[in-house]
């Protein structure tokens, strides 16, 4: 339990945080990626139903603390077509635990003209800022690791997924109401995720199209998204991919998210007019990624919780 008035961090830890931020800025400065600082407060927020937005202000006209700088960074990409990064605080309502704080530091960057693979190589360069011993990072296929650790195919029917989940000690309410996708999330987070990147960091790719978020689908196999996640010691560190640039496809996905929110009784925010305008103006082909800076520091220092590397973290 943190004492009032105390940061909970040693001076050494505070220095290590500062050193990492300085190293990130020095890295990008050296390769011509420009820092931007888009607003944290906007009238809409991420449509992803599983990203709970933190609403502030009057209930009649709520504003949202941003869960990521994605939308406005895409506007800058459409407007200027240059590589950019943002290093700053982002917010999630109700996320608190060993790996979660309601406010945390995110590094998000975009590389116009780069493939997903190019960007993954650059993510490794960022990892090396804290852990120079990391030279090579393996890539595993989402479907293969799912099968390896659950003995089930992710396309298995609801009954089979539920039967596997029941063995994990799952509440009856969850078992009875979860759709196949939720059960798959459950199995991935309980059976697969803890095993990922135990010896050294690992990328997961080959996510199914319904988990594409706003990444484009693989032109060679449109059941898969060109998206990756980075894991280290069972902790998800980064999430990126090749950006979706077609407005129609974007509208379909955003509407599906909002429809899901409506059905689930979650807040339904407005379609992001800035993001739509960026797509209308024309988003260049680009890859982008968001990386949790606190988690990176936590893994590099061998800490057990993000709160142990963040000043004034919540219990």
């Amino acid at each position: 339990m943190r004492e009032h008035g105390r940061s909970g961090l040693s001076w050494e830890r505070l220095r290590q945080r500062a050193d990492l931020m300085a190293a990130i800025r020095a890295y990008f400065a050296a390769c011509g990626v420009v820092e931007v600082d888009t607003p944290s407060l906007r009238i809409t927020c991420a449509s992803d139903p599983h990203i709970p937005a933190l609403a502030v202000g009057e209930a009649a006209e709520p504003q949202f603390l941003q869960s990521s700088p994605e939308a406005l960074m895409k506007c800058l990409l459409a407007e200027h077509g240059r590589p950019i990064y943002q290093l700053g605080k982002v917010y999630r309502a109700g996320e608190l635990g060993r790996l979660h704080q309601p406010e945390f530091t995110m590094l998000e960057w975009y590389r116009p003209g780069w493939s997903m693979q190019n960007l993954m190589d650059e993510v490794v360069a960022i990892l090396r800022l804290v852990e120079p011993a990391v030279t090579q990072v393996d890539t595993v296929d989402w479907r293969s690791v799912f099968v390896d650790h659950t003995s089930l195919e992710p396309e298995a029917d609801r009954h089979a997924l539920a039967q596997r989940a029941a063995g994990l000690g799952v509440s009856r309410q969850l078992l009875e109401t979860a759709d196949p996708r939720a059960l798959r999330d459950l199995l991935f987070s309980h059976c697969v995720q803890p095993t990922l990147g135990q010896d050294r960091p690992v990328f997961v790719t080959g996510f199914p199209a319904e988990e594409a978020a706003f990444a484009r689908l693989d032109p060679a196999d449109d059941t898969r998204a060109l998206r990756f996640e980075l894991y280290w010691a069972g902790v998800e560190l980064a999430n990126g991919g090749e950006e979706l640039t077609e407005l129609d496809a974007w509208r379909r996905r955003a509407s599906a998210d909002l429809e899901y929110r409506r059905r689930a009784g979650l807040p339904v925010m407005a379609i992001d007019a800035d993001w739509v305008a960026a797509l209308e103006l024309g988003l260049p082909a680009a890859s982008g990624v968001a990386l949790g800076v606190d988690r990176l520091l936590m893994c590099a220092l061998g800490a057990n919780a993000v709160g142990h590397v963040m000043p004034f973290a919540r219990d």
Partner: protein
Amino acid sequence: MTTYATNQFKSGLKILLDGDPYTIVENEFVKPGKGQAFSRVRVRNLKNGRVVEKTFKSGDTVEGADVMELDLQYLYYDGEFWHFMEPVSFEQYSADEVAVGDNKIWLKEQDVCKLMLWNGSPISVEPPNFVELKVTETDPGVRGDTSGGGGKPATLETGAVVRVPLFVEEGELLKVDTRTAEYVSRVKE
């Protein structure tokens, strides 16, 4: 009836699962990269002490368990139930064999015990950490041996059997740690 959403989970919270009262030992927020969030909790069954893991979908609700802890004075055993009394209100409670369990060997009349009540009925009885009990049976004492080395079994007035030093005699009053079932010292009456 109280219900709790997963974001209210914290250690010590008493909840009802599959009809049994549990206390939350540890709560972890689990979330895959993209997708549903879950609450994974370690919970202890308040009736049998067993610890299990359980996963909930974030936002799910569970019923709170109407559990409270009371300090009650032990009165007597009637052959079926152990009777306790609240020292201020004089309200009486009776605990059955399941609730008292292995702790029955530490219950001495007048001692104040911690009882956990679920829906008003005792489900567990915790004796004081130290109790003073008379030796009813042990081998004759070895005079002059105050080293405490070696030792021998002694049966106490409640039926408990503890290892005591060789010098302990029948009829003596002993202080015993109920958590470890170990002899602490002799007590002067």
